[in-house]
């Protein structure tokens, strides 16, 4: 988040990926969409998240794309399927369909993953509050994103504690299933107890008060943000005009 791109205002980056996603969905063919991943890889190089981006993208998207490709081309029956062996057949419409689907998935996932890697949660929530999103919505988003890693760590502790008290976690399926409730139960009950205390703490800090709060953490829209947003808007209008004409 320390690069020049990381310091941009979140809505600027959001406008950009929105433009990319809309263009990916509606542009016919598949070359534009497949080019999106290299584009975002280059952008992630400039924003200092190159290795993280590549690792995250390839580990999640590659498998899905290959599988969709294989199933659509070889297994689904279309009108022009020519059988090759047993139930595997090659289909030209399947090939075009799979190229279309996989290219769009690759492009949209590339854009979304890049956005979440270059925008910190704090910035996103601050931008949402400035844009007058309902306070309850921004609270839910930030508390969920913060709580999930804490709870994963807590559940690891509970897992070890229960194991040391004799809960079997290896063995037959039945044995492992009997371990599920003792693992989840203490976690949930301690969370519920914390919830009550948290509600009291928030109420004592005027959470539900209607006036606007001053934030200690500030980010501002700079001229470069306005320029990029205007360029995105112009590009979007040009794209719509081009799609309607062509």
């Amino acid at each position, binding site marked *: 988040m320390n690069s020049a791109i990381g310091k941009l205002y979140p809505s600027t980056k959001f406008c950009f990926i929105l433009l990319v996603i809309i263009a990916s969905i509606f542009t016919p063919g598949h070359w534009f969409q497949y080019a999106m991943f290299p584009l975002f890889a280059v952008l992630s190089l400039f924003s200092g998240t190159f290795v993280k981006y590549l690792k995250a993208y390839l580990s999640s998207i590659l498998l*899905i794309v290959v599988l969709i490709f294989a199933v659509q081309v070889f297994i*689904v029956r279309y009108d022009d399927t020519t059988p090759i062996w047993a139930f595997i057949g090659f289909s030209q419409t399947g090939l075009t369909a799979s190229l279309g689907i996989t290219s769009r998935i690759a492009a949209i996932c590339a854009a979304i993953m890049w956005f979440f890697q270059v925008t910190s949660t704090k910035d996103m929530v601050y931008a949402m509050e400035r844009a007058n999103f309902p306070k309850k919505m921004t609270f839910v988003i930030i508390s969920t994103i913060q709580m999930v890693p804490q709870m994963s760590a807590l559940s690891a502790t509970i897992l070890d504690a229960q194991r040391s008290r004799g809960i079997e976690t290896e063995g037959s399926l039945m044995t492992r299933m009997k371990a599920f*409730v003792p693992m*989840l139960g203490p976690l949930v*009950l301690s969370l519920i107890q914390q919830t009550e205390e948290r509600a009291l703490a928030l109420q004592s800090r005027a959470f539900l008060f209607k006036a606007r709060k001053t934030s200690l953490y500030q980010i501002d829209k700079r001229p470069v943000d306005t320029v990029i947003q205007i360029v995105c808007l112009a590009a979007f209008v040009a794209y719509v005009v081009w799609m309607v004409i062509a």
Partner: protein
Amino acid sequence: MKRGIRYDFSLLALLLIPVGVSMSVVGYQLSTILKFPIFIDQIGTVFVSMIGGPWVGLVTGLMGNVVNGMLNPVSFAYAFVSMIIGLVSGFLSRWKWYTNIFGTIAACFVLNECSATVAAVVTIFVFGGVTGAGSDLVTAAFLAAGGALVQSVLSTNLITGMAAMIIDVGVSWIILRRLPDRFLVKLNYGMPYVRNRKALA
């Protein structure tokens, strides 16, 4: 206690949403660690919708998928499945289906049907029928046997979803029985599960 979309999002209900999302994430991690053949990833949504109602359950399902989607954007598409599970389960809780064992079993069937249908629609329209999960092998088997794409994906989801849904609803119900009365009375939808009925009268 007034219920409805305008009254359901009290502070306590809002704080239950991260609890539900964490439960779903931890449930998924536990089922990976304990090497279950099915993934228990909706447990938080079902649990929160039982005590918080349909709209809080819907937001819990949505947030669960948003949090997962930050790492793997495929989850964004399946947010509709979690949302429908939260919504339907919340209404079933309001209609007191979860207060006895027969209603709970019937709820499993209803929830499985809804989630399988929505998941099939999403899988077919967005992903062309496969998503990279193990259940794709079942889909491929159905397709190879000559079934149409819609039926194959739907059948896959119904079968693999049923076991997961039984565990989701079952474990949520067990934990619900353990919640103290003084917490349940503060929630809009917790009244049917309060044990000390003499104190309520």
